[in-house]
């Protein structure tokens, strides 16, 4: 945005350095699968990491920018996964279209929830989203038409990009997940630099003042909610196509909602790099801790995991990325 000869973008040189680093990282990530063909564990780890990073971005848009902390975003993931899967089973809808349909359904549900719950402040909004997500979990676990607690198997298709299914070689999932992160990050960065991003942060910092300047906080929060829910839902469809089986514990659990939030919080709330760093750290730790320390009777992996989250929240409340920034990460 350029007004009266002044630009809102950061200084040009820093932009170049950052652009170079991003290009380098992308090049490495694009080349990596060439070496991972025979390493399904690492390939899966990275794919899941990208998925969480994309979801962290989506959550961050609502919580980090607009200041509306949700602990129920897992419900949008579930809505996406169930919508595209039911549409595929019922009428044979292509999963790409199913994913868009799921996003639209989730965005609408998000708007309805927002209309009802955005009037709640602080902790009450958090509790409302948590309770709604749990209710949806219970409803789906009991609802025969959507497979209840037994879950749903996706219809198996010939592997192709159009069918959004790949069986022997899982590398296409990796690239699609990478595309999801890039798209989600680009959207957040774009919004952040436009007036929309400024208004969202203004609402977070001082809702009353923003209102008196002529902005309707409800309207902006609803837009953030719709975008956030829609993005998460598409990730849900990706997950369904990736695992080819969904049930309430895997796509609607509280644990999922918490993880989506943690990725952004641990990385750096309200920043575009935060969810990426958070996903890289948390997914890596949780997967390796599980291999090394879990097993019957000794769930040390979860303890270790909890310890790291506590350490970050005590020593770096603005998230890991605040280690590198000049301004504390939590505020930009």
């Amino acid at each position: 945005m350029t007004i009266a000869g002044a630009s809102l973008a950061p200084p040009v040189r820093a932009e170049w350095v950052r652009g170079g680093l991003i290009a380098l990282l992308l090049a490495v990530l694009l080349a990596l699968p060439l070496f991972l063909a025979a390493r399904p564990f690492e390939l899966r780890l990275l794919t899941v990491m990208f998925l969480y990073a994309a979801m962290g971005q989506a959550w961050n848009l609502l919580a980090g920018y607009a200041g509306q902390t949700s602990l129920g975003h897992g419900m949008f993931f579930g809505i996406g996964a169930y919508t595209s899967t039911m549409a595929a089973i019922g009428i044979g809808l292509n999963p790409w279209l199913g994913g868009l349909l799921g996003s639209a359904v989730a965005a609408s549900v998000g708007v309805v929830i927002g209309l009802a719950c955005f009037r709640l402040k602080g902790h009450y909004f958090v509790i409302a989203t948590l309770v709604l997500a749990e209710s949806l979990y219970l409803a789906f676990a009991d609802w025969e038409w959507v497979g209840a607690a037994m879950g749903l198997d996706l219809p198996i298709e010939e592997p192709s990009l159009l069918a959004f299914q790949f069986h022997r070689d899982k590398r296409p999932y990796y690239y699609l997940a990478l595309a999801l992160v890039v798209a989600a990050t680009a959207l957040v960065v774009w919004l952040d630099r436009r007036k929309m991003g400024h208004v969202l942060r203004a609402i977070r910092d001082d809702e009353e003042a923003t209102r008196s300047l002529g902005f309707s906080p409800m309207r902006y929060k609803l837009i953030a909610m719709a975008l956030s829910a829609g993005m998460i839902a598409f990730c849900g469809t990706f997950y369904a196509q990736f695992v080819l089986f969904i049930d309430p514990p895997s796509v609607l659990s509280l644990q999922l909602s918490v993880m989506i939030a943690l990725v952004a919080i641990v990385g750096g709330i309200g920043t575009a790099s935060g969810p990426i760093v958070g996903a890289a750290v948390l997914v890596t730790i949780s997967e390796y801790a599980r291999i090394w320390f879990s097993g019957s009777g000794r769930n040390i992996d979860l303890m270790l995991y909890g310890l790291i989250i506590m350490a970050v929240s005590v020593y770096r409340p603005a998230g890991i990325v605040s280690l590198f920034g000049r301004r504390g990460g939590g505020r930009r």
Partner: protein
Amino acid sequence: MKLLEARGLGVAYGDFQVLWDASIEADKGEIVCLLGPNGSGKSTLMNSLSRLTRLTAGEILFDGHALHDLPPHRISSLGLSHVLERHRLFPYMTVLENLLLGAGPRPDRARLARAFERVYSLFPRLKEREKQLAHSMSGGEQQMCAIARGLMSEPKLLMVDEPFIGLSPQLRHEVAGALRRLNEEGVTILLIEQNVREALAFAHRAYVLRAGRIVLAAPAGELLAGDALESVFFGRRDDERLH
């Protein structure tokens, strides 16, 4: 000609009434001041005019619009701008970003350029500080920035809640000069100020509040000359019968 005409305003927080039957007017081109001891309801009255506080009674007419039916975010585009108490800038945004937000959701380009030119000529310092984060400026600069942000929507009536609080005499003089210049350009000003003498030297007319009611309304000169003010601030016994 009346720009603002509010009648019988009442405000309550739950069961606790804080403003009773307040009526206030401002003519086009006037500087009007709200005076009164702490907690007398000045900010509440101002917040109720910009609709940030809910009314339990009364009506507000502003430039042909009935404000009492409108939500707060619809007010500024009608030409009423409210600079809140303690400036309330967005601390982690630059001066420029703060000012841009002041222009509201859909400013057109020409108007925006005009508004920027006006606030920068009024407060040249802000132009120098354009890229600086709001919270890193001095208190006086932040207050200037808040007034400038309030001007970005090109209001007909500018309401400022305690513009001089915490400012050095030098900055006070600067801010007062800017407000006077705005007034000469035709902007009507409603302000809250604690320093009675200074406020009355500055304003054309004043309303005096006490314990949630308007107890006096008079031209500034009259208030300066008489002793009615002392009784309001120092609360002589016989004065209680007024309420």
